[in-house]
């Protein structure tokens, strides 16, 4: 089973996770920039984070045979902090980078005017740079947030078919599909979605334009949820081709809209005593 996790925050994960993901079949992933749990206070903090997503994290992933790409943006939560908003002016010089395959995560958190501005500005940046957009749907007031998101996308210069609407569930999938966008589902241990509910959504909705991710981060989450969905699909009667479509071909097609996916990472060759990330001081 080859797996592409289209949304996972590896900055918050360990090398053990990389190893387990490779063993489970993960060969590629996309790391969206997001909130770090601790609020940032300046654009410089974003710069260091973006640089890590363009440098150190792809290096770590490659040690474990996994192709690493990223999406960059000012996230919805911090779009409300005037100290952080100037990073919008810096995004153009980051969005030209080779491994940036979308603008994201953008979208709504609390649905404020500041979030309206950041979302619209960044949809325009995506259109300007020939990139698709990864749009987070809010955790609170999700359906209203989705509707407002779709409205803003329709008013933007970006083709709705170049938008991935993420963190969907049973209550939002139908309207999200009606927008023409791609459909992302985050599978969590307790919240958002679980494997069995995901299989039920796939049975009802089909596999077209559906992406499944672990969205694993610094919170309670599981980087192997993609594999568990694949196994649950097979147990529920889906074929291997269906699994490959959802877990590999659909994310490749969506992020491939950027023209920047490079998936040819060599397998891990020389795992130094099981840990090739040496510390320069061991």
């Amino acid at each position, binding site marked *: 089973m080859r797996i592409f996790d289209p949304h996972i925050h590896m900055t918050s994960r360990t090398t053990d996770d990389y190893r387990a993901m490779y063993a489970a079949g993960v060969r590629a992933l996309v790391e969206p920039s997001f909130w770090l749990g601790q609020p940032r206070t300046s654009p410089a903090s974003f710069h260091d984070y973006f640089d890590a997503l363009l*440098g150190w994290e792809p290096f770590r992933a490659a040690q474990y045979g996994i192709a690493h790409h990223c999406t960059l943006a000012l996230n919805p939560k911090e779009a409300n902090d005037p100290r952080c908003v100037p990073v919008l*002016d810096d995004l153009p010089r980051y969005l*030209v980078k*080779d491994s940036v395959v979308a603008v994201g995560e953008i979208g709504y958190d609390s649905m404020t005017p500041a979030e309206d501005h950041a979302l619209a500005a960044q949809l325009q940046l995506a259109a300007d740079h020939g990139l698709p957009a990864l749009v987070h749907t809010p955790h609170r007031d999700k359906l209203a947030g989705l509707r407002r998101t779709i409205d803003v996308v329709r008013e933007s210069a970006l083709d709705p078919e170049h938008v991935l609407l993420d963190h969907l569930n049973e209550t939002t999938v139908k309207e999200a599909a009606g927008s023409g966008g791609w459909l992302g589902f985050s599978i969590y241990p307790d919240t958002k979605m679980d494997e069995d509910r995901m299989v039920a959504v796939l049975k009802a909705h089909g596999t077209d334009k559906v992406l499944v991710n672990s969205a694993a981060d610094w919170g309670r989450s599981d980087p192997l949820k993609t594999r568990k969905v694949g196994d649950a699909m097979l147990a529920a009667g889906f074929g291997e081709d269906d699994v490959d479509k959802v877990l590999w071909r659909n994310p490749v097609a969506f992020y491939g809209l950027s023209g920047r996916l490079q998936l040819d990472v060599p397998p891990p060759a020389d795992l130094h005593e099981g840990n090739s990330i*040496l510390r*320069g001081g061991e």
Partner: protein
Amino acid sequence: MTPAPDQPLPGLDPAARAWLDTALAEADRAAEAAEDTGTPGPAEAVGTAAPTGSGTASDNVAPAPWELRFAAAGRHAGRTHADAVRTLLLQRARAPLATLTRLYRHGTAAERRAVLLALPDRVAGPGALPLVEDALRTNDTSLVAAAVGPYAAAHLDPHAWRHAVLKCLFTGVPLDAVHDLERRAHKDTELARMLADFAAERTAAGRPVPADLTRALNLTGEES
């Protein structure tokens, strides 16, 4: 510091070749424009090569067209050709230290590597050492390997150079990457001491001594 000849870069497919031809023409125009005006490039403040810091007013001035090509080389020329394409662009644009510093500071790991590889041909004095030192602080072996080339051999002081050699041994960068190892290691008693101590530490831990360590120790000409 004459511009490098147009290297053939065999293996580029026709689309990549056409892309590179356009990129090189843009780099040539930038070099000529800088020569005409006597300025190093767009919005360039001539200064030191401080590798860090951000938020200056000049950070977001529209980049020269060839600089956008420099960023996009991986996806247009392919990853295997990206280093060669990027260093060639730096040569043809005759990128001065201030430009190299900005491109490093704003660059991905791959772009930073290209800047490091271009240093020996682009920078005559020690002004770019802060970039080399920045790269040697990372644990990204592709950056460490690119940092210990001819520029480091020419300009790193003995203490920093010895630590660079040790860093290579620690992170598994083959010492073949260290330019001029033989010359600089010769009769370096302090390097010999550091290598011998490292070997003793590994032996005490029951871990093998890297073959490269023994080789470097032999090059010092000192008894271990």
